[in-house]
């Protein structure tokens, strides 16, 4: 029993880290620029399929394929921002609807191009580490480590640099930030590039573990949104913890309670936390 729980905790933490990387993108774009990008899951899908294409069709080694995959996702994000998202600043509903439109377009395009048949990559890194009675696939550990590193580096990058200070200033009062000499349009573009690039990275990592479908983004953006709110919008480390908590609760919950309601456990916790801490676990109001 203990092993089962422990195994689910570890698995949940890894899945949760994936939620966390999407949550980080949501928190960054919404917290800093006031734009809701609900379509981040689609950029994740783009990253995943790009990795697949580069690794399986062109035969690039996986680590080499990841980088251009992120860049492709970020480039798509740049276009989406230039064409759509920058007009939805501080307008939650418009952001949401533009996202829905974009999801519809990107998902259908992926269906046209890749069909609905799930695709699977060859094992990138086979084998597992044994931790007592619990087996952990090596690749999952690598994925977890990469995500952890990315989130911590993002946190440090924003907490310790002038760019980060400018970003936080912009988040609190865009006009005052402009009066301090912050090049605000460039900052906004940078945030958008970074968040979609992150989603692309999430997708690239996802591709190494699970099979790909055009609709994969939908689930992850929902979970990412939950994780971001759970951790507190605007809190970078909160998005990681929010994701991990969500993943672990879903994993452990489905041992003791019916698996069919897996998605509900996280939601129940989310609602409970929102009622008592409206700003999320790590958020400040």
């Amino acid at each position, binding site marked *: 029993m203990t092993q089962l729980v422990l195994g689910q905790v570890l698995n949940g933490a890894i899945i949760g880290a994936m939620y966390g990387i999407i949550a980080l993108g949501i928190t960054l774009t919404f917290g800093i620029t006031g734009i809701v990008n609900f379509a981040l899951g689609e950029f994740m899908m783009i990253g995943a399929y790009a990795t697949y294409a580069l690794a399986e069709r062109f035969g690039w080694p996986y680590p080499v394929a990841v980088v251009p995959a992120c860049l492709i996702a970020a480039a798509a994000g740049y276009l989406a921002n230039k064409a759509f998202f920058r007009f939805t600043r501080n307008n939650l509903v418009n952001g949401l609807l533009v996202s829905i439109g974009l999801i519809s377009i990107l998902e259908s395009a992926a269906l046209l191009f890749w069909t609905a048949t799930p695709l699977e990559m060859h094992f990138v890194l086979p084998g597992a580490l044994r931790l007592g009675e619990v087996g952990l696939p090596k690749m999952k550990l690598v994925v977890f480590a990469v995500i952890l590193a990315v989130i911590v580096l993002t946190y440090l990058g924003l907490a310790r640099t002038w760019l980060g*200070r400018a970003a936080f*200033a912009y988040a*609190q009062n865009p*006009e005052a930030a*402009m*009066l*301090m*000499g*912050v090049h605000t349009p460039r900052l906004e573009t940078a945030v958008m590039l970074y968040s979609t690039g992150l989603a692309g990275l999430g997708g690239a990592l996802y591709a190494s573990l699970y099979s790909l479908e055009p609709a994969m983004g939908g689930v992850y953006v929902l979970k990412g949104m939950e994780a971001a709110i759970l951790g507190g919008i605007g809190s970078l480390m909160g998005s990681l913890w929010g994701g991990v908590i969500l993943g672990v609760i879903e994993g452990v919950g489905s041992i003791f309670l019916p698996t069919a309601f897996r998605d509900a456990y996280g939601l129940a916790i989310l609602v409970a936390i929102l009622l008592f801490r409206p700003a999320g676990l790590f958020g400040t109001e």
Partner: protein
Amino acid sequence: MLQLDAVDCHYAKVHVLRGVSLAVGAGEIVSVIGPNAAGKTTTLRVIAGLKDVSGGAVRYEGEDVTRRPAFERVRRGLILVPEGRQIFPRFSVLDNLLMGAYQRPDRHDLDRDLATVYELFPRLHERRGQKGGSLSGGEQQMLAIARGLMGRPRCLLLDEPSLGLAPIVVAEIGRTIKALAARGLTILLVEQNAAMALELADRAYVLESGHVSLQGQASELRQTDVVKRLYLGA
């Protein structure tokens, strides 16, 4: 140093500024007074680049900056301290001040500037670790001015620094503005508190429904009947 030539400005269809011309010489304190909705704040927003003009030109240090973006004007030392103490509430006082120096190329070495600012506002030194949002109104206004100074302005634009402040704080802010001018800073002050504005300024403009209705030496304006009746309440 700073010059507005027949500036026109619209919000939606409302004509807010109608051919406003004014000039600020180097080292001067110039005040703009006038009733609500006369366009005082808009004038400053136009100068700072937060609002586009629909006609006319803004010249700064001999160059036409009408079409330059806001952050570029800041880099040239044209700095606005906005109305309503728009500080960064979740930053500490120190971070607020550092943010003021964001655009400076030498921003990594700010100890001297910080010392100067703290000397001017000892209260901010006491509260340097506190969050901006937890300061009182008067302290926030001082922080906003201090943050403006951290950018090493050559021309400082102040929008209603006395608004909603206790008399004792208003007096303190007045003293500060004088002290800054004594160091040679050029200041354009927009105020509804005409008594204070005319006392501090060398020259002043009266703005009414979007155009300049009166201008001259502050000491002379104080003597005119219109100003006495409408703004000084004598």
